[in-house]
C-alpha cells in the first residue's frame, strides 16, 4: 500500500457542544490549500469506518475532546503508542477509535499518531456551538498544530481570512 504523508483528523460529536471541538477545528482547515499528501478529515463519531484513512497515512494528527481535571480549553499533545495511552474520551462509542487502534496494532499497521486533546467540562449541553472557553482555545490549537506540522516538514498554508 502506498502511504500518504499526513492526515489531520477531527473526532467528536458535533451535536454535543464542546465534545465536537475536533470537528469544529478541522472544518476551519478544510478550505485552505494544503500541500499534496495532506488530507483533512472530519471523522465525526465514526470508529472502524476510519480504518482505511488511518492505515494509509504514515502520520496522523488527531484532535479530540477529553474529560480531565484541567480547565476547559486546556490543550495537550499526546503521542499514544497503545490504546491505553489515550485519555478518557468523551465519545460513548464503545466500538470506536481505541478499538481501531488496537486492531491496527495487532495488524502491525498503526501510523505514527499525534493526539491533541482539548479539555472540556463533563456535562455538555446539546448544542452545535462551542463554549467561549473552548472556542477561545482554537487559535492557540491552530498555532500548536502548525508548529508540529513545521517540525514534520509540512508547509503550512496561511490561515484563510475569515
Amino acid at each position: 500500500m502506498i502511504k500518504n504523508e499526513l492526515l489531520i483528523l477531527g473526532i467528536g460529536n458535533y451535536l454535543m457542544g464542546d465534545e465536537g471541538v475536533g470537528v469544529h477545528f478541522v472544518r476551519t482547515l478544510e478550505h485552505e490549500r494544503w500541500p499534496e499528501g495532506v488530507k483533512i478529515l472530519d471523522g465525526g463519531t465514526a470508529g472502524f469506518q476510519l480504518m482505511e484513512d488511518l492505515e494509509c497515512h504514515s502520520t496522523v494528527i488527531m484532535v479530540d475532546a477529553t474529560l480531565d481535571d484541567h480547565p476547559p480549553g486546556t490543550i495537550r499533545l499526546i503521542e499514544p503508542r497503545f490504546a491505553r495511552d489515550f485519555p478518557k474520551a468523551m465519545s460513548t462509542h464503545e466500538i470506536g477509535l481505541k478499538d481501531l487502534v488496537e486492531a491496527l496494532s495487532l495488524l502491525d499497521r498503526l501510523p505514527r499518531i499525534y493526539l491533541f486533546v482539548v479539555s472540556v467540562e463533563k456535562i455538555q449541553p446539546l448544542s452545535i456551538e462551542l463554549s467561549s472557553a473552548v472556542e477561545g482555545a482554537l487559535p492557540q490549537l491552530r498555532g500548536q498544530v502548525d508548529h508540529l506540522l513545521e517540525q514534520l516538514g509540512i508547509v503550512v498554508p496561511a490561515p484563510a481570512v475569515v
Partner: protein
Amino acid sequence: MANRIVIDPITRIEGHLRIEAEIKDGKISEAYSAGTMVRMLEEILRGRDPRDAWAFVGRVCGVCTTVHSLASVRAVEDALDIVIPPNAEHVRNIMFATQYMHDHVVHFYHLHALDWVDIVSALKADPKKTSEIAQSISNWPKSSPGYFSDLQKRLTKFVESGQLGIFANGYWGHPAYKLPPEVNLIGVAHYLEALEWQKEIVKVHTVFGGKNPHPNYLVGGMACSIGIDDASAINAERLQLVHRLLKQAKEFVEQVYIPDLIAIASFYKDWGAIGGGLGNYLVYGDLSPNGYRDPSTYKFPAGAILNKKVGEVMDVDLREDNEIQEFISHSWYEYAGGDDAGLHPWKGETKVKYTGPKPPYDFLDVNDKYSFLKTPRWKGNAMEVGPLARVLVGYGRGREEYKEVVDSTLSALDVPIEALFSTLGRTAARGLEAKLVAHWALEFYDMLIANIKNGDTRMANMERFKPDTWPKEAKGVGHTEAPRGALAHWVVIQNEKIANYQLVVPSTWNASPRDKNGVSSAYESALKNTPIADDHKPVEILRTVHSFDPCLACAVHLYDEEGKHISQVKVL
C-alpha cells in the same frame, strides 16, 4: 433469596446501557434495562429548516448514520408530498444495503462473536486441524495451515505483550464457552478479515454520499449526479467500483459470515431455547424496487406478529393516532397530560424530569422511573424489532426467499422452527437477512444501471425544495428498517420550520423500561429465565442483550459517565 447483579455499562455496544438482573436458583427472575443518559435531539431540531434535519440526525451515531438521514429525508418528503426519481430510490437502496452488510458483519465478528468465541482458547488450536475444519465449511481461500499458524503466532505475541486491548473485556475460560480451540481460531482469523473487509464496503457510501463517515443525503433525491463520462460525477468507473464492492461483500457474507454462523451455532443449540422473550414482532418495512411509496413491493415486508403467530401477520399504520404511542410511566420525562398518557409521535413531547438516584448509586428504583428511554407500544403491545422480526414477518407473509433461507438453516442445524424464538434465532436471523440483502444489493445495482442506460439520469426532484412552495403546515413520517430494527422519524412543519420532531428508534422498542401496566419490553422479557452459571461473570446476559445488537447512542444521549467496564454483584 435473590442476588441482584448490575452490568453498567454493557460493553461492545454503541452508547450506554445498564442492566440490573435478579438471580434466583441460577436463573434470572427479573431484569431491568435502563438507558442512563438523556437524549435531547428533538430539542436541537425544533425551529430549524426541515431540509437540514438529515445532517443533524446523521451525527447522532457513528454506526447508523445513514439510516437516520434516510428516515429524516423521507419524513420531510412525506410531509411535503415529494416523489423522488427512480435513480435516487435505487441509490438509497444500495446505500441502505451497504450499511446493512457492514453493520451485520461488524456486529457478528466485532461485537457479538466474543460472547461465543474464546480468544485465549484459540492459542491452543492445532493449525492443521483448523485448516481442515475451515475447508470443510467453506471454499474461502484463506484457510491453509500456514495461514492459521502465522495468525496464531501473531495473536500469541499480542496476548503475551499484555495488550489484550479489544479482547480485554471477555470472560475467557468461562465454562459457557463451548467451541473447540480450532473453531475459536477461525473466529479470530475472520475477526481480522472482517475488519479488512469492512473498510472496503463503506467506499460505496463515499461514491454516492460524497464522503464517509456521515455521507450526504438530500430532501428530494440524492446529492450526486450521474454522468457516465464525467470525471467529477458518478461515472462508469465509479459505478464499476460499486459493482465490484457489492460482489465482494456478497462473497464475504456467503463464504465467511454464514458458514461461521452455522458452525458456531451448531455448538450452542441450547441457546435455541433461551432468550426468546416477548414473541411479538414489528416491522415497518423497506427496500422496494418500485419506490418507497409502494409498500406492497417491499423486500422487507411490513407487519406485526403477536404471540409467535407467524401465520397471522397484521398490518401496521404509522400515521394512526392509536397504533404507535410512547409512554413514560417508568421514564424520566413528564407529559403535559400526565404520566400515564400515551402519545403518538406527531404529538410527542420530550421534557426531561430526572427523579432517579444521585450517582453513584447501587441500584435504580425500578418501581418508579428508571430510564431515559421512553416506552413505545403498538396498539398497547410491547414489540421486538430487528432481524428476527423481519425474518419472521417475511416468512409469515409467505415470501419464498425467506422460506428458503430459514428452512435450509433450520435443517442444517437440525433444530425445530421454535428455535427461532431465541437468542440463537435472533443471531441467526441477522446472518440470514444479510445474505438476502447481499443478493438484493446487486439487483438494485442492475436496476440503477438499466435505468441510466434508458437515458434517465435524474437524481433529485427539486420542484418543492423552495419553502415558498410548501403549505403553511404539514406533517410527515419517514420510516426504514435500520440494521437493529424498525426506525421512524415523525416531523411537524409549521411556517417553513420544524415545530416538532420525534425519533422512535429500534433500541427504544427493544431496550425500554416497563409500561404503565408493568409489562416488560424486549430485553427485559428476553433475559427472564436465562441461566447464569457465575454471578460474577454473567456472559449469558451479554449473549442475549448483544443478540439484539443494542445501539443506545441514538436511543439515549451522549455524555459518558465515568465508564466502569465492570459488573457489580450485590446480594440483596
